[in-house]
């Protein structure tokens, strides 16, 4: 339950009683004098990422509208799409570099432990935010690529069926027509059936056998080309999958890289420690040996002096 109002009322009441009792009033200082430089930098980075996120979200619909059915829907040209892509890439890169610089700065400063934890957590949260926004960007890009591939597929289907119709129609009359279909790789935005140039018959009259031969050849060629295009499509989709997997793997590899580096430095420092330890042990052994020598010498000297004194006194 919100009792802020009650609190403020209490403050006023206490102020009144203080005034009545005649105590001095301290000037309230609402404006802050100094701002925390570290936080300013952090806020700057966050602002950039927010800007990127807003741009992505605003233009998302237009960006994804690859197949423009209605002229009233907003859409983008390829160039503007690529502009957005490059700009997003740039912002993400600059943010990551700024974050790294910031991290190093914080580690160089000597500030109490709680503040260090505070700042490192701030950096972590900015990193997470940046990652989520870049994931958003990658997802929209992937959706766009998928849609483009789909439209390619659809348009190819159109051309194939049109050529099939042409084939069946052209084989009906006795006139021979060889249809060469040119699968057009470049597809325009409007799905119009591609023109299938029909080559006019060279010889009007051909024997039935030759017609059959040509027909079978046609069918054979047709099947071959079909299978080729199928394979190409499959390869495309596989490549998309593989890129996704690659992204996952590279992320994991990067994580492991950090770990491995840490382990390497630890190992190096531990070998150093072991070397030092060996050194010290060697010195200790030497000193021990030296000590022993001196003790023996001392004892011998003392015993000889005792003998001498004993002999002398006698």
């Amino acid at each position, binding site marked *: 339950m919100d*009792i802020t109002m009650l*609190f403020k009322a209490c403050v006023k009441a206490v102020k009144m009683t203080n005034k009545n009792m005649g105590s001095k009033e301290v000037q309230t200082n609402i404006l802050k004098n100094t701002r925390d430089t570290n936080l300013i930098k952090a806020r700057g980075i966050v602002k950039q990422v927010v800007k990127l996120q807003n741009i992505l979200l605003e233009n998302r619909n237009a960006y994804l509208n690859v197949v423009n059915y209605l002229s009233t829907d907003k859409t983008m040209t390829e160039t503007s799409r690529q502009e957005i892509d490059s700009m997003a890439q740039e912002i993400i890169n600059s943010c990551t570099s700024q974050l790294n610089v910031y991290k190093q700065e914080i580690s160089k400063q000597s500030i109490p432990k709680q503040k260090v*934890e505070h700042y490192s957590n701030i950096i972590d949260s900015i990193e997470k935010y940046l990652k989520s926004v870049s994931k958003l960007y990658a997802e929209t890009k992937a959706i766009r690529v998928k849609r483009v591939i789909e439209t390619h597929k659809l348009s190819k289907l159109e051309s194939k069926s049109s050529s099939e119709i042409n084939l069946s129609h052209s084989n009906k009359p006795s006139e021979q027509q060889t249809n060469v279909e040119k699968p057009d790789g470049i597809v325009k935005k409007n799905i119009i059936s591609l023109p299938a140039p029909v080559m006019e018959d060279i010889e009007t009259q051909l024997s039935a056998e030759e017609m059959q031969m040509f027909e079978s050849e046609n069918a054979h060629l047709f099947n071959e080309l079909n299978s080729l295009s199928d394979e190409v499509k499959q390869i495309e989709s596989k490549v998309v999958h593989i890129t996704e997997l690659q992204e996952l793997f590279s992320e994991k590899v990067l994580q492991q890289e950090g770990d491995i580096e840490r382990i390497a430095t630890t190992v190096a420092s531990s070998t150093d420690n072991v070397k030092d330890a060996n050194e010290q042990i060697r010195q200790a052994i030497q000193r021990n040996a030296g000590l022993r020598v001196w003790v023996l010498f001392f004892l011998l000297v003392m015993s000889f002096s005792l003998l001498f004194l004993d002999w002398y006194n006698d």
Partner: protein
Amino acid sequence: MTSIRQKQINAIKQMLNLNQAPTKNSIAEPVWKVLIYDRVGQDIISPLISVKELRELGVTLHVQLHSDRDPIPEVPAIYFCAPTEENLGRISQDFQRAIYDIYHLNFISPISRQKLEDLASAALQANCVASIHKVYDQYINFISLEDDMFMLKHQNSDSLSYYAINKGDIKDTEMDNIMDSIVDSLFSVFVTMGTVPIIRSPKGNAAEMVAKKLDKKLRENLFDARNNLFHTDTHMGSFNFQRPLLIILDRNVDMATPLHHTWTYQALTHDLLNLTLNRIIIEETSATGGARAKSRPCELNSNDKFWSTHKGSPFPTVAEAIQEELEEYRSSEEEVKKLKSSMGIDNENDVALSMVSDNTARITSAVNSLPQLLEKKRLIDMHTTIATAILNYIKSRKFDTFFEFEEKIMSKANVEKGLVDILSDPDTGTPEDKMRLFIIYYICTPYISDADYSKYETTLQEAGCDLLPLVYIKRWKSYTKMASGTNQYEGAGTKTVNMFSKLVSQGSSFVMEGVKNLVVKRHNLPVTRIVDHLMDFKNSAEMEDYHYLDPKQLKAADIPRNRSPFQDAFVFVVGGGNYVEYQNLVDYAKQKTTSGSTKRIVYGSTTLNSARQFLKQLSLLGQEI
């Protein structure tokens, strides 16, 4: 009806979001904050929200109120503490030192007007009134451990223990303080739930006092039009049917259950491994000669699917389930490994397109499921360690024998001979276990001759037991004999199922030979029986004797005879609860729900006592007599 735990989590998340409603957007700009809590606040937050979730909510630093804190500029600081003098003093110190720039003060229970004025004057003196942005009363002075279990205090719980309430030299003011704090917490439970319950309680003991005070407090708040905390939702339909039943019981109604040797997974972890606030600390002794013992904290909460399905099952079932999970995990691991080898082979030959497509799909699914597999492995490891530790304890203390015996005693079977054997056998169990067994025997048998009694006493003394709790139990029994005569534990029993052979034949890591595989027959503990009678309006002693208090009605009304049975119930035990009762209530609710009428029961108590702690309190009480 969302559970009480969920509502508490929502309240805390809203508080952490600076008391603004949470936005729907999943990707939101991070707002950084610092969380400062005292010990009470720590107990409340720790079972609900993990550190990772705190970081996701933007909390960069969380520290104790009474520690040395460094100034953190420009970031709002959220205070979550109880409004005691000590805490308020520390907060005023913080104001003086101007550690933070923006303060959001949240008090766990409502702060009194006087203390608020003190705080205001301290803020004025330190000249930082402008930086105090919000002051809030959060009514969440309780700890919810599960979706349907809560307790009031964990640290400093001695002030509310059974001993504190029943000791002989208690002063009236102390009693009042204790009652007030209990009522305050119960009140905050119902504010969080948003409903006004109908209260029933027995007559003549601490429960009655709590019930009357709670009724008064609810009534005052309901009829205070200005800050009514219970906003009645008109769209919720006829309010009469939705109101829950609050049953307040005193520990004295059933003294045997806290001492009972347990057999379900959750209860065993509480008894043997000291489960506190859903956390255990396991000591692993290293196998090599060194004496180092690593202690590993394990957290058991509702995210763990295995735990939530098996926390109420008897131990042998749990062991089997762990085996199954392990098998499943191993088979999925095998699949992933096969994938790796098949990929290796394929790289050498020419790859046909179909093979590649198959493998890419498999790789994608494997990579996506890999983190889940790792998590599952970690959980299985944790449960295996816990189960092994419990198994060791059971074997060394012959827990299963005690459990079987107590169940037999509770079902009124004749067990005279076996009892003396167990009590004089130095191998089975610690003196505490024997004491527990004997107290249960004493409570459950209606008559023991003096000769028998002195014989048992000498046997116990030889075994090294402390006899003080017995003195107190004798007195308690004489009091309760006047009230009720029947034995309330009927229907208990066990049957041994020869299922452990299956485990041994599988060559499992759980060598359960020597541990009987006991399956518990379904029965109702006294508390469950009372709840059953009250919820269904059956004709019984409780229905007639218990108070019926309804805060919404202006004058005291009689028990309406034509009401439909309640569907929601809150059972609150003053003086200490335990997991056995909780499990029994959960089983009862499940049974009722499957047979047609839905029942939701929430169990609460002042604290959770393990048998050892309860025995200690009894011996302290026995000392006074």
